[in-house]
């Protein structure tokens, strides 16, 4: 018989085994009777000779080899029967586990999708990112260095190990049908799609001959943009679109979800057609480079080759490439600092799962103790300890797996709404899905938790002093089981303290951060980026006039108090850094202190409500021909000048690109929390320098004009002014666009969104933890008290009053509480340190947080223990003593 036949035809096998034994006994007895023994004696002797028939049968079953499988099957059926017998217990246990496992699986789904899954390209391990590297470059401040276009072309031509492709960030105004719209434009090399291994959704990629100056203008649309603007109509491929006053033919549509340098472009054009002068320089490094290893090439070989090409270029172009090399690294998804948050949350839900397991363990243990007599009976009948342990574990595994299945379902349904709650954009969110890794994780977690909560009851299976157990009637609770129960309650309480205190700390942090002064008046300020009419951008003089005109028009809109132009505004909406020095002997760039540079028009101070500390802010005196001036913030003033008055002093800013790089300080203003309320204190660069837009040299006018925003202070709710601003600013040709319209209040609030989100989740986890541990403490006390009913009955019969009895029970829970809270406090101190490391602006652990949060748990736990205590005090001694 096969193993499965043995499983399915178990009864038949048992019958045959029984028959074989009976045949043996009868033959033996017959023979003895033939020898003259009395029939009764013959049967007795035959049985003695064979040994206990059940024992022999058991050994025969063992000999089959598939015994474990049969046992498993039997145990499974037995476990299901047990759970069916007590549906209430099963439901509570499975739901508790489902919550724990579901939450853990959900978090792991995100961790897996965002952090662990490889990039969504074919053969992702062959993809590399290529960066420039030179001694003066501060990677920790500026990020990885990109590559100059001529350097890129040289690498592309000379490399035998890599197929290189490049892309450049740009922007443009798409006009024509419908409103003019500012689009996220990327210029790409013709081979970008083939290097990544991506197929277009429609149409074709660029051809090599299109990636050159003077070739016919062509463009590829991003999938979302195509859907949004053209409702996914296929006839768009082949049509002509007007981008910055030039007609482009649409040749293809990028696939859905295609991302380039962390965001989905709206429009792509061939890089080689761009005639911008900075693309011809080896000193500017704008090109982001990805590459695919050629078949057979290794990363090491590619690195060696790039190094060689770099050295070669350094010899050839000494003034720009002297210390520059190129490095290749495996291409990894850039997910920013989201990893810390995800791991933090996974850790927190792990704690919730642990509490859930402990809870189920104490429930199971209580049941195991009431089943003690049954188990003892089975041991007496010949069951081995291993067999009993296995059965107990099978039961808990069934519970764990049922909880797991339900949990995965919870995670599958809950994950979309959860992602919608996530503050800001979760990187790679479109790649997040339940895959085999998540299912494997859920399976392991389920089995592991089943093992965890099943182990204690299983190991309690009685093996010795059977006789005592059998006689004891399952009434006595031994000291060891009381201790075990106690330790469950203690660990639940401790874990709950950790989560509660963490939530409390996050709450305190959020309160503290919200109360911080951003350094400006954020009420009633509207900020919006603005794309000037493409026609005016070609000529710097016309650009200046256009900006001036725009500001004047905006100021005339009713309800507008003041207007300013600004390139980067606070709450980390863009940043531009420059190294500065206070004397003419400027050291090399990598030795310089850095400051945030903000290019503004005179009314900026008024619009943002930033306070002027000394000197003046910009005004009409600051014109292109006058000496270049700057205004610094109090942080820079303190850092560089200490107690001295900086007004009238000068700063040397070597890489400003002005004719003269010496700037006179005309004023000092208050510090603005540029990096957001939470992160400004820890930011690497805090010092701020403002410089007037009016003095910007012509050479920078075009680039800056693409980056400028306008900030508007309004009398009433700022969003109400958007429509009138739009119509007033659309320009003569109707092709000036406002985009990314937001209020400062919104931005300030968004800068705390991660802290708020963490507080929200930790709050939920803490509430769950308190609830679960209260259920746990209630269950354990109710059980222990129930076991003591006869004893309490005697006490009452002997004259104990209800108060004494209540105290008897409460004393027990207070003892557990004290130990649990003490352990939890120690663990919470450690958790506080973890939070301090991972959460920006986190406040250190303090006594007040403990004083506020821990009483919540203590009161809840006392309430939970009060119920069993009161029940105990109402025990009727007559009934109690008659029990059993």
């Amino acid at each position, binding site marked *: 018989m096969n193993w499965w036949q043995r499983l399915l035809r178990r009864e038949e096998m048992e019958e045959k085994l029984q028959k074989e034994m009976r045949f*043996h006994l009868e033959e*033996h007895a017959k023979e003895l009777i033939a020898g003259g023994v009395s029939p009764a004696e013959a049967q007795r002797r035959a049985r*003695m*000779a064979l040994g206990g028939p059940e024992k*022999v049968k058991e*050994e025969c079953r063992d*000999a089959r080899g598939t015994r474990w499988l049969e046992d498993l099957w039997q145990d499974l059926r037995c476990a299901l029967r047990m759970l069916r017998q007590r549906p209430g217990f099963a439901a509570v246990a499975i739901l508790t586990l489902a919550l724990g496992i579901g939450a853990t699986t959900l978090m792991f789904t995100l961790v897996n999708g965002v952090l662990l899954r490889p990039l969504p390209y074919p053969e992702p391990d062959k993809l590399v990112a290529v960066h420039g590297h030179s001694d003066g470059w501060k990677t920790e401040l500026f990020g990885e260095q990109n590559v100059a276009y001529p350097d890129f072309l040289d690498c592309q031509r000379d490399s035998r190990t890599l197929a290189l492709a490049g892309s450049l960030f740009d922007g443009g105004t798409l006009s024509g049908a419908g409103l003019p719209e500012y689009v996220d434009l990327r210029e790409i090399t013709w081979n970008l799609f083939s290097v990544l291994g991506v197929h277009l959704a429609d149409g074709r990629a660029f051809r090599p001959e299109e990636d050159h100056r003077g070739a016919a203008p062509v463009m590829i649309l991003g999938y979302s943009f195509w859907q949004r603007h053209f409702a996914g109509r296929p006839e768009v491929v082949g049509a002509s679109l007007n981008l910055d006053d030039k007609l482009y033919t649409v040749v293809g549509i990028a696939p859905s979800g295609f991302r380039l340098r962390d965001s989905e472009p709206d429009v792509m054009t061939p890089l080689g057609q761009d005639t911008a002068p900075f693309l011809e320089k080896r000193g500017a490094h704008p090109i982001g480079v990805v590459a695919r290893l050629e078949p057979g090439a290794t990363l090491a070989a590619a690195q060696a080759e790039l190094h060689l090409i770099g050295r070669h270029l350094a010899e050839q172009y000494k003034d720009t490439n002297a210390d520059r090399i190129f490095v290749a690294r495996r291409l990894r998804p850039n997910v920013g600092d989201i990893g810390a948050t995800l791991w933090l949350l996974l850790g927190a839900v792990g704690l919730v799962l642990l509490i859930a397991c402990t809870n189920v363990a104490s429930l199971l243990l209580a049941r195991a103790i009431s089943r003690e007599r049954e188990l003892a009976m089975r041991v007496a009948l010949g069951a081995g300890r291993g067999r009993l342990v296995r059965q107990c574990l099978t039961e808990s595994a069934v519970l764990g797996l049922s909880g797991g299945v339900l949990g995965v379902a919870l995670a599958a349904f809950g994950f979309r709404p959860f992602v919608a709650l996530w503050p800001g954009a979760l990187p790679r969110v479109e790649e997040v899905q339940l895959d085999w890794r998540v299912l494997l994780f859920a399976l392991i977690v389920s089995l592991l938790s089943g093992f965890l909560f099943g182990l204690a009851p299983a190991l309690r299976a009685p093996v010795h002093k059977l006789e005592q157990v059998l006689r004891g009637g399952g009434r006595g609770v031994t000291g060891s089981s009381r201790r075990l129960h106690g330790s469950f309650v203690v660990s639940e309480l401790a874990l709950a303290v950790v989560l509660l205190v963490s939530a409390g700390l996050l709450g305190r942090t959020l309160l503290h951060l919200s109360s911080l002064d951003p350094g400006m008046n954020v009420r009633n300020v509207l900020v919006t980026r603005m794309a000037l009419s493409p026609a005016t951008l070609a000529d710097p003089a016309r650009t200046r006039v256009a900006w001036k005109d725009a500001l004047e028009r905006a100021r005339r809109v009713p309800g507008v108090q003041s207007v300013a132009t600004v390139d980067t505004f606070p709450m980390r909406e863009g940043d531009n850094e420059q190294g500065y020095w206070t004397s003419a002997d400027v050291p090399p760039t990598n030795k310089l202190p850095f400051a945030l540079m903000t290019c503004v028009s005179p009314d900026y101070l008024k619009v943002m409500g930033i306070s002027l500390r000394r000197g003046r802010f910009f005004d009409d005196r600051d014109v292109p021909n006058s000496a270049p001036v700057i205004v610094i913030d109090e942080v820079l003033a303190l850092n560089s000048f200490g107690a001295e008055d900086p007004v009238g002093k000068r700063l040397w800013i070597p890489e400003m690109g002005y004719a003269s790089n010496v700037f006179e300080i005309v004023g000092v203003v208050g510090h603005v929390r540029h990096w957001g309320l939470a992160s400004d204190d820890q930011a690497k660069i805090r010092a701020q320098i403002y410089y007037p837009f009016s003095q910007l040299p012509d050479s920078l006018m075009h680039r800056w004009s693409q980056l400028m925003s306008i900030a508007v202070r309004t009398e009433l709710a700022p969003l109400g002014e958007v429509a009138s601003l739009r119509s007033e600013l659309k320009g003569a040709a109707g092709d000036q666009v406002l985009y990314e319209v937001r209020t400062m209040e919104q931005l300030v609030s968004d800068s705390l969104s991660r802290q708020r989100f963490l507080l929200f989740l930790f709050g939920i986890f803490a509430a769950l933890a308190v609830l679960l541990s209260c259920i746990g403490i209630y269950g354990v006390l109710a059980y222990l008290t129930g076991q003591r009913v006869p004893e309490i009955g005697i006490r009452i019969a002997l004259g104990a009053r209800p108060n004494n009895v209540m105290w008897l029970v409460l004393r027990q829970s207070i003892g557990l509480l004290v130990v649990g809270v003490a352990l939890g406090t120690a663990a919470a101190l450690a958790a506080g340190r973890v939070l301090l490391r991972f959460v920006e602006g986190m406040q250190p652990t303090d006594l007040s947080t403990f004083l506020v949060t821990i009483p919540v748990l203590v009161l809840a736990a006392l309430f939970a223990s009060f119920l069993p205590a009161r029940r105990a005090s109402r025990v009727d001694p007559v009934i109690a003593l008659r029990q059993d």
Partner: protein
Amino acid sequence: MQKPEVSALNPKSDLPQGTLDLLLLKVVALGPVHGYAIAQRLEQVSRHVVQVPQGSLYPALHRLENRGLLSADWKETETGREAKFYRLTAKGRAQLETEAASWERLTEAIGLILKLSQEGAE
């Protein structure tokens, strides 16, 4: 032919496990036979020297069956009762041959050693 009850009660076999398997294979090799007859035959042939506890007989038979060395089917005995008859499979026969050969080699070697030590003692 009545055997002493005392020895039947002795739960421990004096035989190492492999030996019991070898004996069972040999007895079954003589022709299809049921469990009780195997017990009897072992006793008779070994002239009561080898005492196989009946309790360990059946687990051993089932183990051999499970390993494919024996096969079994239900047939009627001469007295018309249904019993489980064990037969040797081809695999069992091969196993019997190798085990018998190695047993002979072993006993021969042990015999030699014993003789040697006797001579040495003399």
